């Protein structure tokens, strides 16, 4: 019986345990020491289909696999890359994109206009549920591709199929010409085309018309300087290698390993130990030691992140503009960026990020200047509320600065201020939708394309997708719209600046900070730069040895 030989059993059990622990341990040291490749840290992308990729991890990987129609120069103006020319008609409504000849997908298919049209139609079609579908909303016919649930989400009826499957505004005139008809004139549409969702997909991506092939996402085929080496190893890594005879700009490295990390701190540990070449965002808790750990390989560059708090319009106590001004003046932005963020963010005094054309410094004026005496005076005169709350999502790194901000408000205005953490951003939104008194709402915005309009439209216009606080001003909406349909980008900027001036008067939100990329790299690489979209410049980066 079992009882006769307990020791044999114990030894056997240990042996099995050790064997199990040992087996399957593949050689993780697939050394890349000799080859000319670099490793860059990311988090697991949610998706790699371009039209479904709206977060930065996926976008970074796609930037190596695809070659965009336009890219942005130092002044953040769009320049043609895979496109030969992009020209509007006189009214800025119909845009003609001419493709450069000679480009192929990684599977050998030539890149033709139809590839773009197919990919975009797929992305815009509502039932495909693509995260980036709203980018196509400016193209004619978008509304017909969406369906609406006739009796709301809770109702028993299913939504009918949309009226159409293809955008009427998209046409492949010939193999190298795409004609895009917009629903309304938009002078700066060229900038929009630089976003990830406007990449083409090869014929091989589709198993039928408008249906993506099974497994395509794990072994995606692009038109860029690098191609997939093997498949997407979920939660582990994505390896890409150089395409031979690439027609566009040729990178200086032979391949990239996108190493996937769950935690920024683990990524940082690998960077310091030399097991990772580039980290694009060093976690805030490591900033204090980063200079000592990395020396001049610890660097900063601007990005588009704009941090602010909004006043919910459904709370009457904030309806007096003097209350909003007073709270803004009570905040010492410089102190918070220095003390809490250790200089990794800079104070914001305008309603758009400094990285877009048309940005002016300090449009917020005195309202964003730290002036506790004046703040107190205004607040008392306006009979502001005695209790203030700032609600934030506790799964982000917000507690420290929200509490610091609250303490500043307390000291300046003599009112009670508390930071309230909601578990997730979604919980915060739910409360806002139910019009619960959440107080000030912490918010942030990362641009999709470098235009003022990409801040003004979504954040402050009445129908804006991220205008959670319900700000609405007809004059403002009109000016933003006029800017979109202006004849030239310069005229557009003039209109948008007028719109921004309205914000400065009304203070629907308090601008707080502009974030920066704080990145670091190992001794193995050089010429590392991180752009406004938090992407490493893959064409410049080099290995040192």
């Amino acid at each position, binding site marked *: 019986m*079992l*009882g006769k030989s*307990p020791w044999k*059993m114990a030894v056997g059990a*240990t042996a099995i*345990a*050790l064997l*199990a*622990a*040992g087996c*399957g*341990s*593949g*050689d*993780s040291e697939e050394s890349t020491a000799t080859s000319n490749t670099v490793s860059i840290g990311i988090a697991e992308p*949610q*998706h790699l289909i371009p039209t479904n990729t*709206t977060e930065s991890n996926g976008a970074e990987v796609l930037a190596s696999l695809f070659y965009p129609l336009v890219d942005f120069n130092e002044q953040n103006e769009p320049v043609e890359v895979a496109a030969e020319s992009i020209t509007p008609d006189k009214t800025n409504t119909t845009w003609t994109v001419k493709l450069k000849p000679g480009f192929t997908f990684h599977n050998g298919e030539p890149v033709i206009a139809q590839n773009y049209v197919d990919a975009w139609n797929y992305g815009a079609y*509502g*039932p*495909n*549920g693509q*995260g980036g*579908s*709203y980018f196509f909303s400016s193209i004619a016919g978008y509304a017909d*591709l*969406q369906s*609406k*649930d006739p009796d709301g*989400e*809770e109702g028993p009826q*299913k*939504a009918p199929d*949309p009226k159409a499957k293809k955008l009427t505004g998209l046409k492949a005139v010939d193999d190298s010409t795409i004609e895009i008809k917009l629903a309304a004139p938009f002078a700066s549409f060229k900038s929009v085309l630089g976003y990830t969702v406007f990449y083409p997909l090869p014929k091989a991506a589709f198993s039928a018309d408008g249906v993506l092939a099974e497994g395509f996402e794990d072994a995606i085929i692009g038109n860029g300087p690098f191609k997939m080496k093997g498949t997407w*190893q*979920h*939660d*582990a*890594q994505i390896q890409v290698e150089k395409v031979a005879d690439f027609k566009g700009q040729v990178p200086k490295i032979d391949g990239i390993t996108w190493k*996937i*990390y*769950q*935690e920024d*701190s*683990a*990524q940082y*540990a*690998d960077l*310091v*130990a030399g*097991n990772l070449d580039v980290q694009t965002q060093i976690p805030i808790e490591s900033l204090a030691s980063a200079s000592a750990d990395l020396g001049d390989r610890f660097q900063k560059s601007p990005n588009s992140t704009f941090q602010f708090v909004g006043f919910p319009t459904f709370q009457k106590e904030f309806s007096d503009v003097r209350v909003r001004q007073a709270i803004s003046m009570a905040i010492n932005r410089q102190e918070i960026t220095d003390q809490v963020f250790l200089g990794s963010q800079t104070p914001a005094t305008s309603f758009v990020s400094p990285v877009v054309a048309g940005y002016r410094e300090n449009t917020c004026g005195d309202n964003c200047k730290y002036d506790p005496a004046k703040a107190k005076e205004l607040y008392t005169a306006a009979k502001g509320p005695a209790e203030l709350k700032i609600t934030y999502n506790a*799964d982000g790194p917000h507690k420290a600065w929200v509490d610091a901000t609250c303490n500043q408000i307390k000291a300046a205005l003599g009112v009670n201020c508390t930071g309230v953490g909601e578990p*997730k*951003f*979604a919980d915060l*939104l*739910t409360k806002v939708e139910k019009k619960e008194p959440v107080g000030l709402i912490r918010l*942030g915005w990362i641009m999709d394309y470098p235009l003022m309009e990409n801040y003004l439209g979504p954040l402050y216009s009445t129908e804006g*997708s*991220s205008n959670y606080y319900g700000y609405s001003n007809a004059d403002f909406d009109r000016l933003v719209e006029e800017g979109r349909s202006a004849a030239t980008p310069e005229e557009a900027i003039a209109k948008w600046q007028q719109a921004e001036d309205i914000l400065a008067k009304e203070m629907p939100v308090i601008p707080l900070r502009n974030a920066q990329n704080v990145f670091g790299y190992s001794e193995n690489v050089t010429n590392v730069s991180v752009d406004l979209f938090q992407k490493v410049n893959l064409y410049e980066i080099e290995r040192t040895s």
Partner: protein
Amino acid sequence: MFRYIVRRLLQMVLTFFGATFVVFALVFANQDDPLQALAGERPITESQRLALTERYHLDEGFFTQYGYYMKGLLTGDFGESLTQRKIADLLADAWPTTARLALLALVIAAVIAISAGVFSALRRGGVFDNVTLVATLIILAMPIVVIAPLAQLVFGIQLGWFPPTSGADPSLWALFLPALVLASSVLATQLRVTRTSVAENLRSDYVRTARAKGLSYRRVVSVHVLRNSLIPVITLIGVDLGQLMAGAIVTEGVFNIPGVGFNLVRAIRTEDGPLVVGFVSVLVIVFLVVNLLVDLLYAALDPRIRYE
């Protein structure tokens, strides 16, 4: 014996369904807006919301959703995560890694705990006994959120003895440091229990009898005393195995090991019901099987215990 095992297996089936039901209900109660949780701070268009709601039956009631899930589970289909990956694939990727980590940690903990426990019980009040007492107290007092980053900083980065992170599909060597960290969380209790148990048994009658029979002290300790003393330790180890598998959340995060702990965190963060339930279901099975094995091991260690 056979009847006992069958009875236990039948109980396990009931426990399994009960547990998955409770977990599913808890996740459902916690579920607020999983689509927004997935998108983070980005807005979701109405048509995207519509399409995904339909795909994951998010607008259905609790029992309908549970019905869909159970139907899939019984046909061997764990369903799809909200990022459209097969949950079966996620399980297959994560479980072997975590199992290796947990087993390695368990072996490290058991070897250290039992040898040090026996030694300090034999020399009660000696230097070694006191040093281990203080050491275990310190380890017990330090939560894993402190130990894990500290070990990574000291041994991984500053001294460079171990790789600072393990990554997916790590070698045994890369897993050693996280396993050591994990082991520290269960080591102290196992050591103290071994020591107490051995010390108690050393005083019992059968030890005196055995000595009187003329057996060597070494044989008495290593065969008679140890075998009897291991019963409570084995129970503890069994419970610890489950804890090590489930409790690797912090360690897996710090050492970048894409195992069960990480997937659970991700699933909870994104309110991904089927993903949580998938992982917890397997966890429940592990707990049940380990408990059964532990009970059977009792019989092996103590012939007086019989199962009918």
